[in-house]
């Protein structure tokens, strides 16, 4: 049970049958071509090579590993995330392109797993980012990973895997949890609020106390837009 209120998804207004076909095609392609981010956050990563290589061959499902977060669709959190890693995971998650999906592999992502006593690992992944799917086990077999990915594919095809929107809609909640763990001056280079505006996903949960705190602390990293003006001040001597 996630403690986040599910925002009712507004039914698409498009009634043009062609548009529906197109949407369906897009969803189908999204579900059939999944790029996994090559990021071994924890010990579950050891079961990914078998899943990708000759024996289980995820490529036959259209699943490929990718290196950079920009290219990837799926963030596999393979196991426990130490707090130091969690920062990088959030950075990486925010850099990934939507629609993006997070899969928590291993029990540790659900509830801390066997490291529940550890001071160094975060216990509950979905406090910090929305998670589409958990694959429990310590560690889940490659078959289980593939099964989970297939479930995700079905959900993408059905248009249900929308957790990434949740991150924008409830950014304040996630940011709050992040701030609680990392300190008040926590800031990632990605400007999530402006992205939410960009995707038209700004909602009540996007802004709040925590984002205000962020704005107090942050150095804004706005995109370096091209500037044509000549009448700027002279270069500093």
């Amino acid at each position, binding site marked *: 049970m996630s403690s986040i209120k599910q925002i009712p998804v507004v039914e698409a207004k498009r009634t043009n049958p062609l548009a529906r076909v197109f949407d369906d095609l897009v969803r189908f392609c*999204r579900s059939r*071509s999944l790029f996994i981010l090559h990021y071994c956050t924890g010990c579950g990563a050891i079961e990914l090579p078998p899943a990708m*290589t000759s024996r289980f061959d995820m490529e036959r499902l259209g699943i490929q590993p990718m290196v*950079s977060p920009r*290219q990837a669709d799926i963030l596999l959190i393979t196991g426990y995330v130490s707090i130091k890693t969690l920062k990088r995971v959030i950075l990486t998650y925010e*850099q990934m392109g*939507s629609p*993006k999906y997070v899969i928590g592999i291993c029990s540790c992502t659900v509830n801390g797993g066997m490291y529940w006593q550890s001071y160094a690992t975060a216990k509950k992944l979905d406090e910090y980012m929305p998670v589409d799917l958990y694959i429990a086990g310590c560690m889940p077999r490659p078959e289980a990973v593939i099964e989970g990915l297939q479930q995700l594919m079905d959900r993408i095809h059905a248009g249900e895997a929308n957790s990434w929107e949740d991150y924008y809609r409830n950014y304040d909640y996630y940011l709050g949890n992040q701030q609680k763990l990392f300190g008040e001056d926590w800031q990632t280079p990605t400007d999530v609020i402006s992205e939410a505006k960009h995707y038209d996903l700004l909602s009540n949960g996007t802004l709040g106390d925590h984002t205000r705190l962020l704005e107090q602390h942050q150095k804004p990293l706005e*995109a370096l837009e091209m500037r044509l003006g000549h009448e700027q001040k002279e270069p500093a001597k």
Partner: protein
Amino acid sequence: MSATELLIELTLMPLVAFVVGMMMVLMMRRIAAKLQRRVGPPFFQPLYDIVKLHSKRTQVSHGLIHDIGIVMAMGGYIAAETLLPVPGMNGIAEKGGIITLLYLMMIPSLGLALGVGQCANPNGSIGIARALTAMLAYDIPLVIVVFGVAYAAGTTNLIDIIATQQAGGFETWGVTQMPLLAIAGLIAMHASLGKQPFEIYIAPAEIATGPMVEMGGKYLGGLFVMQCFQLYTTAVLYVSLFLGGGTTWFDFLLKSFLVLAIPMSIAYLFPRYRTEDLLRLMWKWPVMLGLIGIAFVI
């Protein structure tokens, strides 16, 4: 030829190139899978990838040049396709000739270089530096080969080059007339595809996929499209220079796929070279073969 016909040709040629190119990508991935004892991707996988990438909601851009780079990468190849005669369609091949074609084939990589440059990522910049170095490596044998073929045919017009080869059947094909050049050309072609052992600029473990590092969504999609075009252009160019082009679509495509299958089957059996080893290799064997080949031609 009427303007309408020409327009239809100019539209069809890149389109065909794209579709065939996607099949070539599929073939490449299937060959890799077979060598790695896997099943490989489904038939429409290249299409799925491209559609998915273009349909991503997030399209992260580092600036206008980043966008333009991708446009140039795609557009350069689209333009290049129209200079590359295929059975039944000549496009504007006689307006440019092979030297122009070679130069047009450089535009995508240079456009990409610009786009990557703006990403402000050192990995990307190193990748581009390596890609340009690789270009310096494989273009030298390539121009030797092109020189030889063009000199032998007495023209730079690809249509004429194909026609001279088709004149006497198999005996007048470039590969039988100029076997050394054909071998050098094959090596240069392999290197220009950027597959192992010449894969110095993708190199994930070294520079985390180099130029592609900041590319996501339609940017990466553009590169996938570019890859389709690249495979097609390289294969078809080779077929036109050495295998007598195609009289029918069937043998044309057959030749193209077969010729592409050669480097693909080799690629997955090798690690990648270091940059200087690549240069050394490309500047030694294919150049030597090419020059000897040219000596025979002249």
